[in-house]
């Protein structure tokens, strides 16, 4: 696993949805979900219309339905909660297969399922059609505080490095014949968490020093007009100014797509 291969949820494609600007897609997702959440109970035709609209967008993205379906496992806890609702909710009871269920609970669970499923499908479609670095540039464009975008940029950039470090620690533990099976093994896992924190924090310190050496002054210039900036900053004239200048001037997208330095 290295950087620059897009995201695990990202599905490479060239549909109109892939080409659409990330900040438009985020706004569309937010607007659509606000409408879904605000749709009153009983307006079944409205839910039908929202479902048809969402289905059309999914089809237009040309992301295979199986790709999306496999990633819908994140919804599992919601299913469990929805299954419990009819058992514990108030109100008039109805008998279904010998179980006394609450009618309002059943309705509520159905609504929750519909809304949550719309949310997961719409969210997955955004994730599948948007590169992480385009998403970050879009968030900056939506006037998310610069510091927050930078933190998110560093997180996304080093996510694979850190999770990979954790995976290697697990492999190392298992190579020594250890598998965590019950709470008596928590101590070992907690020490791994501690080691992972120290490694992550020290990596952060080294990254910060490396950036200072290249002229970092607390701000990363965001080049919003070029969200699809090339991964490698063009040399040519810039070469004479040396490496430091190039890095300091590199826009966030370039910073994000450049191979992760194992600082």
């Amino acid at each position, binding site marked *: 696993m290295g950087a620059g291969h897009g995201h695990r949820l990202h599905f490479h494609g060239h549909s109109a949805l892939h080409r659409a600007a990330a900040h438009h897609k985020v706004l569309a997702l937010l607007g659509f979900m606000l409408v*879904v959440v605000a749709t009153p109970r009983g307006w079944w035709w409205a839910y039908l219309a929202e479902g048809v609209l969402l289905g059309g967008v999914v089809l237009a993205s040309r992301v295979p339905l199986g790709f999306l379906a496999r990633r819908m496992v994140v919804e599992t806890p919601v299913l469990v909660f929805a299954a419990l609702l009819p058992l514990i909710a108030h109100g008039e009871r109805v008998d279904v297969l010998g179980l006394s269920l609450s009618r309002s609970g059943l309705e509520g669970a159905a609504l929750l399922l519909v809304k949550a499923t719309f949310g997961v499908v719409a969210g997955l479609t955004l994730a599948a059609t948007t590169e992480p670095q385009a998403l970050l540039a879009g968030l900056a464009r939506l006037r998310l505080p610069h510091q927050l975008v930078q933190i998110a940029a560093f997180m996304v950039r080093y996510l694979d490095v*850190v999770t990979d470090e954790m995976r290697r620690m697990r492999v190392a533990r298992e190579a020594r014949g250890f598998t965590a099976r019950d709470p008596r093994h928590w101590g070992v896992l907690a020490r791994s968490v501690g080691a992972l924190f120290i490694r992550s924090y020290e990596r952060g310190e080294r990254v910060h020093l490396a950036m200072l050496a290249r002229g970092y002054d607390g701000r990363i210039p965001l080049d919003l007009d070029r969200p699809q900036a090339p991964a490698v900053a063009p040399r040519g004239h810039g070469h004479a100014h040396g490496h430091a200048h190039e890095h300091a001037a590199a826009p966030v997208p370039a910073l994000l797509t450049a191979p992760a330095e194992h600082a």
Partner: protein
Amino acid sequence: MHVPDGFFDAPTSAATAVVAASAIGTSLYLARRRELDDRTAPLAGLVAAFVFATQMLNFPVAGGTSGHLMGGALAAVLVGPATAILCLSVVFLVQALLFADGGITALGTNILLMGVVTVLVGYGVFRVLQAVLPKRASLVPLLAGLGALVSVPAAALVFVGLFEVGGTVDVPLGTLASAMLGVHVLIGIGEAVITAAAVAAILKVRPDLVHGARRLPTATPLVVRTSPVATPAAPAAPTGGEA
């Protein structure tokens, strides 16, 4: 579990989003001023990646079930409350937008419940106990664990309160509160044990990295020990280094 879309009604979602946004704004200011200065972005980014990774690490509980760390109290004790809120907020933002985990309309609710509440309650308990107990670094893991223990049921209680105000299903308050509290006290115990053990492990290696132990004497003074055997009277004639 992350709150999905449609769990709370629109006004509740909007209100929690406003609260979460103001908490993030305050944290941005405080993190830059008091905790990390210009190192904020790279360090908070790496800590956010760390929190994300630990949330993927499963701790076996019993009978094949497992849980994972929420990490609010842990992050607060390690890097300070303001940075911790920033890290957790970014984790939820990335999870919502890149992993479709937690609804986008419920993003404010998720940040408020699992970021702001766990951090503030966990760190608050930690600092209050630290103020009344003897100032010893050896107590830091225990206090961090106690903070984590309280932070998880506190988040569950805030969830119940929100559900009462803006829940989409009419569930008796008592049933929901006792069910949520029961489950989350158990989760809190796991969170407490793991937080304490992780903080203890970090204190042994890099005590300077634990924000909650900053003002405590953590290092033992350096002692120079000499032994008569190791100090020969006169160096022998040079024999040519490498040879």
